[in-house]
């Protein structure tokens, strides 16, 4: 951790050349896995994440099933080579927590009442991790659910805001997360104007807190446009097949 790194220069330019309200480069492709019911691949800055969705399908073990509704499960997992120091393949406590947070961020968007006793499984694989991997994963997961034809109320779009050099910025990268002052990932349903994921590490005043949410939501709206394009590209491709 280089504490003398300049995270923001006098011209308001960040360590990776972005402006304070600028997202990293985002590419999303839908429907790229052959065996999954739905899938998506996202590159979000240096994050590279693959998501596969299966279901609605039978639940194993059966006692987990619900006679009133379908259930959602999520596994967020990092490949051993995805981070600087090789990661042990067994799931860490951090991965288990993020799996739960992503599941709960997707739940408000899906309609599983019509599929009692079934499960929809969302499998997230982080092939390369950068700052904001849970937001990137959530964006891809929401696309993969749509690609699988799961009934949805809205897309979930996600983006972090944070605080570096006493300034609120959009989309915190890895260096900014390490050396910065705060990181706040946000998951957002753009049509319903509802927040489904919210976490914060770092210190913010009330004003900064409100601004952070606001900035993140603006970012989510930009992400949403990219998500829509990915879905359109996918279905357009299907038509011309």
């Amino acid at each position: 951790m280089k504490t003398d790194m300049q995270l923001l220069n006098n011209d308001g330019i960040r360590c990776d050349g972005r402006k304070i309200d600028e997202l990293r480069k985002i590419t999303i492709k839908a429907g790229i896995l052959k065996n999954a019911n739905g899938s998506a691949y996202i590159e979000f800055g240096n994050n590279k994440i693959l998501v596969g969705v299966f279901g609605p399908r039978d639940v194993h073990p059966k006692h987990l099933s619900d006679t009133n509704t379908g259930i959602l499960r999520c596994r967020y997992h990092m490949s051993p080579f995805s981070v600087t120091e090789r990661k042990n393949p067994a799931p860490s406590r951090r991965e288990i927590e993020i799996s739960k947070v992503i599941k709960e961020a997707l739940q408000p968007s899906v309609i599983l009442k019509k599929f009692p006793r079934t499960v929809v499984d969302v499998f997230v694989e982080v092939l390369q991790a950068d700052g904001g991997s849970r937001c990137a994963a959530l964006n891809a997961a929401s696309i993969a659910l749509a690609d699988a034809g799961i009934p949805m109320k809205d897309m979930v779009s996600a983006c972090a805001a944070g605080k570096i050099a006493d300034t609120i910025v959009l989309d915190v990268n890895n260096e900014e997360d390490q050396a910065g002052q705060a990181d706040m990932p946000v998951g957002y349903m753009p049509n319903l104007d509802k927040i489904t994921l919210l976490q914060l590490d770092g210190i913010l005043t009330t004003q900064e807190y409100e601004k952070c949410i606001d900035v993140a939501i603006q970012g989510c709206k930009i992400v949403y446009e990219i998500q829509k394009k990915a879905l359109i590209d996918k279905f357009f491709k299907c038509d011309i097949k």
Partner: protein
Amino acid sequence: MTTIIDDLKKNKILGLLKNEKRIDSRGFLEPRSMTIDIDVIQKANGSARIELGNTSVIAGVKIQPDKPFPDLGDKGIFICTAEILPLAHPDIEPGPPGEDVIELARVVDRGIRETSMLDLSKLVLEKNKSVIGIFVDNSITNCDGNLFDACSYASTAAILSSNLPTWKLENEQPVLVEDQESIIPITTIPVSVTMGILNDYIVVDPNADEWECMDARITMITNSDGNICALQKGGSGSVTYDQLKECSQIAISIGPKIRKILKQYQIDN
């Protein structure tokens, strides 16, 4: 899986909320009454038993020399765990922690870590080689909702009331210096406030009945300066921007009251 009984209870709770009442007669922004006892475990360096309504937790602090984490050789170690004991509730089965308990422990851990409550840079015996580790373990002995705040208060009180033993290095091995205890380097006192959102009503410190039927949960940890230092949304529902603003105002207004209680247990400088 929801049963008819669950549905009836949920309807009752929501009906009451519409009439500005809670099932246990509290005000919306009123935490349950709390009792704290410290030094309940003499073999620990610090300990506290909290009862928050009927939720009860015992936190114990163990302080012992350890190796630093790689790349963090200039910092002591802080680790916080939680276990819901199977005697705390009929639904709890013994075994390794599930995702709920892992989330619980990690949110409590972050509340202490992100507020920088502990000045870990003062817990180094020899840089990169030998540091002091502070382990806070929460044993939950009765579940009645809102384990987040209960574990956070228990952990915080246990840390505040801990003595810090002294070690010196002999032949690179840490050796305890008897009868030389000092004070843990504390910079701020975190206060966790957990709010449940039920049908757009916000209630503080949800009990087990409210916990089961709430749409979403916001846990917000503030520091002594009234700033927000950690936050976690939970639950399968969503929240609005306005609700989040309201939550922060609630957390900031409740913080000082709880902090005043917790501060009583801090060992004097």
